[in-house]
């Protein structure tokens, strides 16, 4: 009996071991897959494409900026459309005075004289 014969016989045993290897039962596979599912990190959700108006809104600075913009717009419209009642006395009174004297401006009509 040579060493090669010994190796050949031993290889027959190894081959038998490979061919008769135990296989995982269906129950074992099911348990492994259940644990795999429980341990699996969840895939990151695919980001949805934002609607055009949202990107426009965000480009302008978001909701607070839009609020300020609307307020300024309304205020501007009001200022432009309303009669300027508050300015009437300031504009009307000086031009309504027909006889302007030094007293009209409290004696300081010519301020250049004050500084000398």
């Amino acid at each position, binding site marked *: *009996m040579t060493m090669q*014969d*010994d*190796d*050949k*016989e*031993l*290889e*027959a*045993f*190894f081959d*038998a*071991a*490979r*061919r*008769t*290897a*135990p*296989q*995982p*039962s269906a129950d*074992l*596979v099911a*348990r*492994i*897959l259940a*644990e*795999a*599912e429980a*341990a*699996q*990190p*969840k*895939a*990151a959700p695919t980001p949805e494409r934002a609607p055009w108006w949202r990107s426009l809104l965000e480009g302008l600075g978001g909701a607070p900026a839009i609020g300020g913009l609307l307020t300024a717009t309304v205020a501007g419209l009001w200022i432009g459309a309303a009669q300027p009642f508050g300015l009437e006395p300031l504009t009307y009174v000086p031009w309504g005075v027909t006889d302007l004297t030094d007293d009209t401006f409290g004696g300081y009509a010519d301020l250049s004289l004050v500084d000398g």
Partner: protein
Amino acid sequence: MSDPTPMTDEALLVAYANGDPRAAADLTQRLAPRVLAHAARLLGDQAEAEDVTQEAMVRLWRIAPEWRQGEAKVSTWLYRVTANLCIDRQRKSGRTAPLEAAGDPADEPPGTEASLIAAERAKALQDALDTLPDRQRQAVVLRHIEGLSNPDIAAVMDIGVEAVESLTARGKRALKVALAGRKEELGYDDAG
């Protein structure tokens, strides 16, 4: 056959970590039989080998998100985990040698003469493996049954390649001695 370029174990593990629902099934189909067979040969007990297989695969799922690609083979890592789990079980149970041979073979159809001979030879080999020291048994199983290369075995066992060669050589010699007395009953004769 159906897929000319199958994904590597590592690619599947990365896919699993990224949430691919198919990856776990593919990895299980590919790796669980090898883990079970290895555990059965180291432990010699089918039920315990199944428990070890389940635990080893759980550890694989857990390591997946942290797996460092290119550093180690998945199969090598899994063989090492399996061997460590087997050693832990043997230590806890206070034994270092397997109690009995692994469970029923699944590949061979039962009843045929060839399958009976294969089963008897596998049983005789397992009995002989059980007489080896743990490290010799592990090295011989990885080299001659699982078919790993010596460098891969060295990585699994955390030893040098020369130490692997020494362990497998001594293991084979011991197996030949252990099996010498059973050749006749297993269908061998002196003529070869």
